[in-house]
């Protein structure tokens, strides 16, 4: 129901630039996630959309209306967006009903209508029986749903969620994830969701914006962003990944740190490269059949998978194998490794730089 257009938005606090040249459009009805390590600028972007921060330069449109930029600034209360805060921000001096009714009360909505709409939204978040309770009588998860109901009650065209699940326990977080997604589908609203949890982002989003140090590293669907990371940072941030330095030449990549063993490669890159491999994309084969040969040094049985360390030359390679291989392998045994999928990046020192600030 709403689009958000961000044009060249830059934000600096003093000398500290937290957002550089943000230039994107969030489409109508889309579930967009701003993902990144803490301090990457994702919350600042969200607060700029909400109107709690003014961009240092650039313009921001909600639908086609300019809300921030130049001399124009529409204050938060005039933007008709809903927002759920990380701390929930449920007012302790009002009961659940009054908390949720607040946005309507401010608009001087008739009482009967308020009642009707609040009841309806409380039903959506499964809180109907708690309407008269005060926040201190609610659990964290219930308070979180009060905050959600309050954000939804005025039927906003845009819903902003600032790490709404980070204060919940693991089980509840998982179920709330799907509830939020369901509500979004049901209401068809545009959602901007901020999180540092990649699983959350993968599970809910239509598009993920992966941000690092104020710069969007990649923007794509969860599937693409996982399988085709644009750079080492993206590859590293989503899922597990290991990097090996090698030399690409004549249809193969040789790894000096693996006593010059090599894998075949028919891609375009040559010279010094970084090979990114997800541990689950390496499989065990008989020693003589493998692209690489090494010695199994340790294995950790995790039930569904077997997390192994294989020494290849001077390098310790992590391999995540299906759980059933556990009983067939013994520490110290010689093994062959097949690398099913890998990505090749130029070894231009970018990796070290990118990984340095990751938290």
């Amino acid at each position: 129901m709403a689009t958000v257009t961000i044009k060249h938005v830059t934000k600096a606090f003093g000398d500290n630039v937290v957002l550089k040249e943000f230039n994107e459009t969030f489409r109508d009805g889309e579930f967009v996630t701003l993902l990144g390590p803490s301090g990457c600028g994702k919350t600042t972007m969200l607060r700029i959309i909400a109107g709690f921060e003014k961009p240092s330069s650039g313009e921001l449109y909600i639908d086609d209306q300019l809300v921030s930029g130049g001399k124009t600034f529409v204050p938060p209360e005039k933007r008709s967006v809903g927002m759920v805060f990380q701390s929930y921000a449920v007012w302790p001096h009002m009961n659940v009903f009054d908390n949720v009714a607040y946005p309507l009360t401010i608009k001087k909505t008739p009482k009967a209508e308020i009642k009707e709409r609040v009841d309806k939204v409380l039903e959506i978040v499964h809180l109907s029986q708690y309407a008269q309770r005060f926040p201190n009588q609610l659990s964290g998860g219930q308070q979180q749903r009060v905050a959600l109901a309050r954000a939804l009650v005025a039927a906003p065209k845009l819903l902003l969620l600032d790490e709404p699940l980070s204060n919940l326990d693991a089980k509840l977080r998982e179920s709330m994830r799907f509830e939020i997604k369901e509500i979004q589908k049901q209401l068809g609203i545009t959602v901007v969701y901020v999180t540092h949890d990649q699983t959350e982002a993968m599970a809910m989003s239509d598009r993920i914006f992966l941000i690092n140090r104020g710069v969007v590293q990649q923007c794509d669907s969860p599937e693409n962003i996982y399988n085709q990371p644009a750079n080492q940072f993206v590859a590293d941030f989503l899922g597990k990944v290991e990097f090996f330095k090698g030399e690409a030449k004549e249809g193969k990549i040789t790894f000096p740190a693996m006593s010059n063993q090599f894998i075949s490669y028919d891609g375009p890159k040559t010279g010094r490269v970084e090979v990114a491999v997800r541990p689950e994309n390496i499989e065990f084969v008989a020693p003589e059949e493998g692209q690489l040969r090494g010695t199994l040094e340790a294995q950790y049985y995790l039930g569904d998978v077997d997390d192994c360390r294989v020494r290849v030359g001077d390098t310790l390679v992590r391999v995540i194998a299906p759980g059933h291989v556990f009983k067939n392998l013994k520490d110290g045994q010689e093994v062959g490794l097949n690398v099913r999928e890998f990505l090749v990046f130029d070894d231009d020192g970018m990796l070290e730089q990118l990984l340095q600030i990751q938290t």
Partner: protein
Amino acid sequence: MQVQRDLQTRNQGELRCKLVLLIVLLLGAALIGAGVWGMGELATSSFEQEGAYGIIYQLSPQLNSVYEKDIRPYMEKLDASTRETVNAKARELLILNWSEQAKSDQTALVDSVLASEKDPEAAQMKLLAVSYSMAGPKVSSKEKKVLAAFSDAERDEFRLQALGAIANDQAELPEVLVSATAKDEGMDKTAKILQFFLTAADAEGNYLPKEIINNLKKAARSANARLTAYQMAEKGEINFFSQLILSNTKTVVLVGITILLDVLLLFFLLKADGGWQLSFKWLIILAIIDFMLLFQVLPMIYLVITAFFPEGRFTFEVFARLYTYPMNQGALVNTLIAAGATMVLGTLLAFPLAWLVGRTNMYGRKFFRSLFVLTYMVPPYLGAMAWLRLLNPNVGTINVILRSLFGMGDTPGPLNIYTLGGLIWVLTTFYYPYAFITISRAMEKMDPSLEEASRISGASPLMTVFKITLPMATPSLIAGALLVFISAASCYGIPSIIGAPGKVHTVTTRIIEYMGLGARGISDATGLAVFLMAIAMIILFISDFVIAKKQYITVSGKSTRPNIVDLGKWRIPVTAIVTLFAGVVIVLPFVTILTTSFKLDVGKSMFDPANFTTENWTTIFSRTETIACLKNSLIFGVVTATIGIVIACTMSYLLQRTRIKGRKIPDFLIALGSGTPSVVIALGLIMTMKGNFGINIYNTAYIIIVAYLVKYLMMGMRTVVSAMSQIHVSLEECSQISGASWVKTMLKITGPLIFPSIAAGWFLIFIPSFYELSMTTLLYSNSTKTIGFQLYEYWTFTNQPQACAMAFGILIIVIVLNFVLNRLTKGEFSI
């Protein structure tokens, strides 16, 4: 097996613990018993002073040594018949002396005393020695000089001769005795010879220490008492313990009762705790409880009892008389109106100021914040003095300016400080910071997203203030308002300076006036103090129990960045208004104090060269009395702050790091003390600490320090407690797991982490103690006057410009200390 053994050890621990408690309980009971016995003994004895027993205890060994060294060897040199005669004479002399002292025949008594002795010779000689040193024949100083000039050999010879002369009144006398006894006949002569014999024993002429004898003379005035004292001294039947008990019966009973209470309290605490483990911590808790019970609860209870039971029975008489007296009624009404109006005005000022300073982009927020809070640390009487100079109906600077502006001629006015309105104005300017601090603290702690949530819900910034910020801050607002009310109601400095000339009386000024009237005044003062105390208790109850439960804002570990509201086009006008307010309320009074301190005549301008003088300043720095007062103030402040901060640290540790059950009791008592009006604390201490309950610290520095501690301990404690609550216990645990002992952990981890708060806590106790006035007015003695009191005296009776110089000096000291504190805590704390 293991479980059983554990259980067994636990039971043994419990048993041992209970046994220790029982023993201490018995000790307490024994002390009470001993004290009561002592009181009984005292009641039947005829001594004028409790101290008599102590003196007799000191006297006994002296008496023995005099006998053994200076009497017996001489007696033994006599031949048997002479010795017998001397003894017979001695008995006669003793009877004579006692009869003379008692003015009746004491033969029977002497005989009965001697009959029970194993060695009657020794007994009667000792009795004679002490009796003669108290009331024997006189030896003139001239004669003493002759005796003193003797060499050892001469002395020996003289004494033997004298002893012989007692047996045989025909014997030849030494030269001195001949002239000395020239006028005496018979037994009188013998008595004199004996006295010479005794006197010659010591070169100074005092065979028993002069001081002891003089003290005994005072403690035992009646003949009866003296005769008893002689016997007791001779028999040596007063031992160390009995004399200790007998000379301090009340203290002994007090200690006994305290121990008894402590044991009972400890028993219930341990029972609730379930651990039955005696540890050092309990001792600390009990020590603090005892301190507060003795110096705070006891005085207050006694105050109430005296008010309702003035002559040992219940009566409203005192109340009826007090409260029907129009001047007192006026004082009550004035107090309630002044405090109420100050509360309303102060809160109305404080909330917008706190909001502007904390939550908007007004210019100079930090500066204004320190400026408003600074007033909190300035003695209130200083404001009264300044406003008096500004709003005096005749010569007040503002009035003079207003009159010339509006051409009103030489009539007094238009403003008059000597009114209830003037009182309210000054009280407001000095007490609104109390509400300001409470409210700003609440606003700082409020989670900013609570307000953001309101904005995003469609509410404007102003609407958010009224719908979210204000309701959420309401509990703190009420707490702040109540604090202003009780501070204004119990203030003495301001109403005494403004009220007295304007005949605007308040409860505090009436109490102090009654105190000036002596014994009768005390009972009236008590009646009024009870009223003030009742208000304080009610307010303390409301803010600690009713409001605290409604408190929404809790301390969160997260540092929050408050929402800053853009004032837009109002930014400059608002800043201007606040600047004007600060100028009038803070800067103007300080400047007035400064300029007045350079004036010769307070009524004239400082810029008149004939009226300008620096003499006031040179005087206050050179007058020994002022310097002595300053020294007293510094000492009292340092001692109070140091003791206070030690208690504060201990209490913080107990409150924050242990789960000991009774840890809240001292905390509650400390809060109670701080909530009690100063005048009430001082009055209670005066009534209970002059020896009638076994503690006599009246007119000493101790009573002043105790009063300061009761009143200001909480300021320091709360600071340290909140600092400690911010330090996660895991930091300490981590140090211990790394191998550091508890002490080392405290010194290396906790100490450095909370040091800024400890320093701040110390200053928070020191500063108000340093310039205290209300309590000191009641508790000072000539040697314990403080700078605050000195200033007040000078203001009221002597020289206002000099008082202003002192006041500005105090102000400078406070500001310098604040600066030091800021440096010491690296900017984390300033007041």
